[in-house]
């Protein structure tokens, strides 16, 4: 009576899985040595301090053990990860026509230029290790908003601003993959929004990993100055190859006094990807960070965006949905450090597991002694679509003051047979009924997104649930 269930990861990702023959201009040997790091650094024309920073990060990488507390990453052979692949294009085109055809075609298929035309203030597109396209609307640039790639910014008027902040929130000593990132980072975005400027429409960057067995290590550094306001959207995808790919990006967000930043991500990496990404925000007095996070792809994810509420009255909101299907082990969550009085954090997540997928929600709330009158509310709900899938919740709380208001709520459930029967009795097929229940379950997250992303997220859920596109 029910339709045959298919497995999306093998056959139905066609839309994302198209790929082009590799045609790289330059590629370093597999594995990591100081020589390779120097090669990368020279190729990228790093300032001296950056080359030294890379070499120091490599040392830290070598002496730091692999994480042993989360999903297994044994399938990741570091010696075989080609860390740096530069596509055969001059970096940083600002005219879409100048982007090489195969790369352009990739992004056309993903709808990047269309999205820019319709609803975005600026777009950056990264293909493998380099940003290949970057454009900001004139009126946004005229307000003094800077949106460029980090490499160019390292040599321009914002060089000092970057040097003072680059990997200060996420130091290479943070964990092994932060150190790796420090050594081999390439590409990514630099955004600066001057004081008092409100960017009405979102900026977007899109990352695409095309080469097999490669790593992507983009660095995103965003500074939203006092009283300014920005929405930044990040999208990621990669076609499927049989060789494991690694993504170890780093996102550092500086939210100034009374400033506001919304950072949205829809991540749909291919299902052989190890997504070991580190994201962190520091929020000054009266400022606010909003994280919106959708995790659908990858084989293994470690992803816990962290907010450091440094100034009095700073706020953090985290809204996330994670969908783990067959062969996926997605360990996601968030961390908040309340480091000042009157700070608030609000965490609301949904995780879905299906076909043997494992989804783990991990949260850590730290309230320092000086963070009196702080409030935190964590709510996480998990839905297991069948009996072979798994869902765990691992909340941690470290509260160092009695004057704080902390709440935590976790619920783990399954799709009830009664609910499926109810919807089917109105004429929906079993698959439709289940998809409807799941997308309804994730609704509070998708409705936070701009419309076209909400649609994309609902589509992803339906694709994952039904294994059929159109």
């Amino acid at each position: 009576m029910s339709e045959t269930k298919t497995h999306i990861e093998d056959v139905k990702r066609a839309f994302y899985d198209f790929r082009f023959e590799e045609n790289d201009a330059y590629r370093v040997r597999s594995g990591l040595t100081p020589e390779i790091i120097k090669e990368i650094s020279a190729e990228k024309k790093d300032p001296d301090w950056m080359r030294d920073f890379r070499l120091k990060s490599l040392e830290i990488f070598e002496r730091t053990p692999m994480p042993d507390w989360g999903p297994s990453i044994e399938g990741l052979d570091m010696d075989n990860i080609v860390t740096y692949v530069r596509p055969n294009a001059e970096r940083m085109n600002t005219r879409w026509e100048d982007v090489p055809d195969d790369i352009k075609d990739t992004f056309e298929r993903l709808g990047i230029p269309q999205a820019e035309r319709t609803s975005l203030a600026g777009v950056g597109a990264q293909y493998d290790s380099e940003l290949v396209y970057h454009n900001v609307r004139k009126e946004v640039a005229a307000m003094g908003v800077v949106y460029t790639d980090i490499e160019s910014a390292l040599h321009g008027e914002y060089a000092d601003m970057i040097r003072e902040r680059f990997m200060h929130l996420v130091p290479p000593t943070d964990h092994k993959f932060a150190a790796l990132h420090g050594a081999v980072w390439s590409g990514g975005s630099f955004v600066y929004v001057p004081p008092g400027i409100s960017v009405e429409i979102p900026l977007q960057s899109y990352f695409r990993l095309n080469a097999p067995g490669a790593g992507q290590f983009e660095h995103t550094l965003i500074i939203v100055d006092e009283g300014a306001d920005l929405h930044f959207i990040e999208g990621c995808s990669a076609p499927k190859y049989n060789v494991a790919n690694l993504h170890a990006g780093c996102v550092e967000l500086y939210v100034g006094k009374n400033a506001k930043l919304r950072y949205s991500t829809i991540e749909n990496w291919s299902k052989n990807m190890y997504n070991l990404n580190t994201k962190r925000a520091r929020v000054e007095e009266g400022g606010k960070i909003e994280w919106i996070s959708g995790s659908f792809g990858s084989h293994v994810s470690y992803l816990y965006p962290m907010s450091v509420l440094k100034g009095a009255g700073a706020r953090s909101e985290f809204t996330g949905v994670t969908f783990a299907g067959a062969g996926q082990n997605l360990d996601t969550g968030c961390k908040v450090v309340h480091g000042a009085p009157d700070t608030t954090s609000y965490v609301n997540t949904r995780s879905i597991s299906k076909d043997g997928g494992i989804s783990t929600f991990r949260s850590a709330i730290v309230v320092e002694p000086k963070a009196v009158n702080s409030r935190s509310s964590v709510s996480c709900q998990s839905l297991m679509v069948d009996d072979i899938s798994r869902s765990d919740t691992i909340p941690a709380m470290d509260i160092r003051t009695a004057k704080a208001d902390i709440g935590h709520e976790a619920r783990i459930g399954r799709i009830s047979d009664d609910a499926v029967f109810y919807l089917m009795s109105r004429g929906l097929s079993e698959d439709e009924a289940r998809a409807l229940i799941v997308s309804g379950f994730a609704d509070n997250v998708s409705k936070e997104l701009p419309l076209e992303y909400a649609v994309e997220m609902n589509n992803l859920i339906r694709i994952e649930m039904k294994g059929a596109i159109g």
Partner: protein
Amino acid sequence: MAADMLTVKDLRVSVEDSEILHGVDISIGPGETHVLMGPNGAGKSTLGNALMGNPQYTVTGGEVRFHGEDLLEKSVNERAASGLFMSFQNPIEIPGISLENFMRSAIEQRSGTKLRLWDFRKQVRATLDTLQMEHSYAERDLNVGFSGGEKKKAEILQLLLLKPSLAILDETDSGLDVDAVKTVSRGIKEFQKDQEASLLVITHNAAILDALHVDKVHVLVNGRIVKEGGAELIKEIEENGFSAFEEAIA
């Protein structure tokens, strides 16, 4: 009499290995309204659920034909598509899906054609008016936070929008106050306006039947139909309860 729409023959149904219905026969023709009455635990809801295809109810014997086809071999949604509807005794809350969007996708999936959004919305609003429900209910999540009475009204709303040929109303009147019973029965009368539409009203309470035209009454006790008759049976049960029937089979 025209050919029957629904024919139930010697239906036996079990729940968790214990037999609840021990061979039930019922025939309902087009445009007829039948009432199934009986004390608590008689198996009334079991009959409704078995006809709709609730997987918790196992049919162990008998035959059911609906519009000439074997109903029991169809999946739940195929039964719905063939014109069967059941109003639930305890409607399920589904977060994140609005009542209106749900109805739209259900109708579109059954008919295979796209509805015109504006026309559909007008129809939903008119139906809400009939049931004295605020228009905002259309946008609220399906049954979430609805009171018992609102849930029952929302079931009737779905009945009127889906326009089945046979509707089973499972204890739709239970837990409703007098005014709500009136509103719900107005909705049911609206459904009866369709000359071909049939009803099987499951209840143990006669109040909801006052305003309805009833063709036939079946009395179910301990999993068996023990008495059948016209609308006059309702009055008899109202006055004497079910004890006479229970004694008869004891």
